[in-house]
């Protein structure tokens, strides 16, 4: 009897791992690193994490988890509330039909698939932030953050792959 309770607890904890890891990554990502000029181009960790888990373990990244991740990100960052939530939900919807094909590809191709998804996410974020402040934002900073997000994808994906091997097998 108690064996069953433990097994269930264990499987619940494992299925929550992607969500918990993503939130932890977002919180740890807030630590000031003191690297010159890095803060404005800090990679969008939420987009990377949500994309990764939707491709490899979509069963463990339901829409409500995506919503909560966006909410945590928006509350902790000083930006407009709700924009991050919406953009991550769009990423969720965009991957809903395609993830089966992407997941079968090798790592490099998945990274390639990340390029347009992240680009869409940044254009949407830029658009909604512009709407909210009622002025066209300079696209330069967003473009640089996009490049750094794409560049950091392999490192973070590697971290998640290790976590996936440790927790989810």
């Amino acid at each position, binding site marked *: 009897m108690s064996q069953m309770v433990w097994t269930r607890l264990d499987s619940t904890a494992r299925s929550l791992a992607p969500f918990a890891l993503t939130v932890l990554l977002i*919180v*740890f*990502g*807030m*630590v*000031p*690193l*003191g*690297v*010159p*000029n*890095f*803060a*404005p*181009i*800090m990679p*969008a960790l939420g987009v990377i994490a949500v994309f990764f888990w939707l491709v490899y373990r*979509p*069963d463990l990244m339901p*829409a*409500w988890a*995506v*919503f909560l991740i*966006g*909410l*945590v*990100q*928006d*509350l*902790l*960052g*000083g*930006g*407009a*509330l*709700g*924009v991050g*939530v*919406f953009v991550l*939900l769009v990423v*969720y*919807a965009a991957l*809903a*039909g*395609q993830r*089966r094909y992407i997941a079968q590809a090798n790592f490099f191709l998945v990274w390639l698939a990340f390029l347009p998804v992240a680009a869409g996410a940044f254009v949407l*974020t*830029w658009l*909604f*932030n512009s709407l*909210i*402040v009622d002025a066209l*934002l*300079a696209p*330069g*900073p*967003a473009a*640089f*953050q996009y490049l750094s997000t794409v560049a950091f994808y392999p490192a973070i994906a590697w971290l998640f792959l290790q976590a996936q091997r440790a927790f989810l097998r």
Partner: protein
Amino acid sequence: MNKPSGSVSRLTTPIKAWTQRFAFLFLVVGAFALMLIGKADTVLVERVRTVAGDAVAPILEFIARPIDTIGNTVAGIGELTELRARNAALERESERLRHWQTVARRLEAENAALRSLTDMVPDPRLRFITARVVGDQGGAFARSVLVNAGSRDGIAKGQAAVTTRGVAGRVTEVGQRSSRVLLLTDINSRIPVLVGAARDRAIMAGDNTGQPRLLYLAAGTETRPGDRVVTSGHGGMFPPGLPVGVVTQASETALRVQPFVDWAHMEFLRLADYELPSLLLSPGEGGRPQGGQR
């Protein structure tokens, strides 16, 4: 949008697919509702934000300390190699500053004498609270940092945040043990400043780039690159005379300011507790005494 056949066995029954789609739509509507609430800027959003900030501040503080130490050690090793050159440079600098110190002392005395001659009202008391920068969300769409001091340490909304070099930003949200400082470069930052020796009034507005713009400079003012920008104290928000930056790009179309602050080495912020009573009251506080008089 997506065919049910694309997602595997979870969407076997059409009813299940419909509930899932409905739930997703519900979440999207939720996101838009959040945007609307955020735009309306209610007290509620601010309170939830400060609670979130308070929750992560201790964790971040725990991590930020060792990272600062590592950074300082690495920087220290780098500096060892150029110790002699630095020493010589610092000695020259110190000599130059000693000269400026005598000038400042003389001016201070003269200023005090003139103030007493003209019976000028003394400036409000200025007190600084020092806090560690524990969080920086980063990103291209907002520039703000989280510090590990809040209302229990005497932090209040609107206080100026400065480093040893100059103004860094303004306190916008205050939790119990953490506060958010909106940096000068954020799109929402507006600070009244004085430009150059002529002390022309202007508003310095951030636009998420590294160099904020100067707005509302009166026509006919001559501003050149290299002009110093200081806070004006207009509006009673900031103490007057705090150094902000220098004018870098002086053209007809856009004037920009390079802030003095070294963003990469902003480990601590000093928050200026500037006691200017009754000038800057929040709507709730301001409403009450007026209502009583009526």
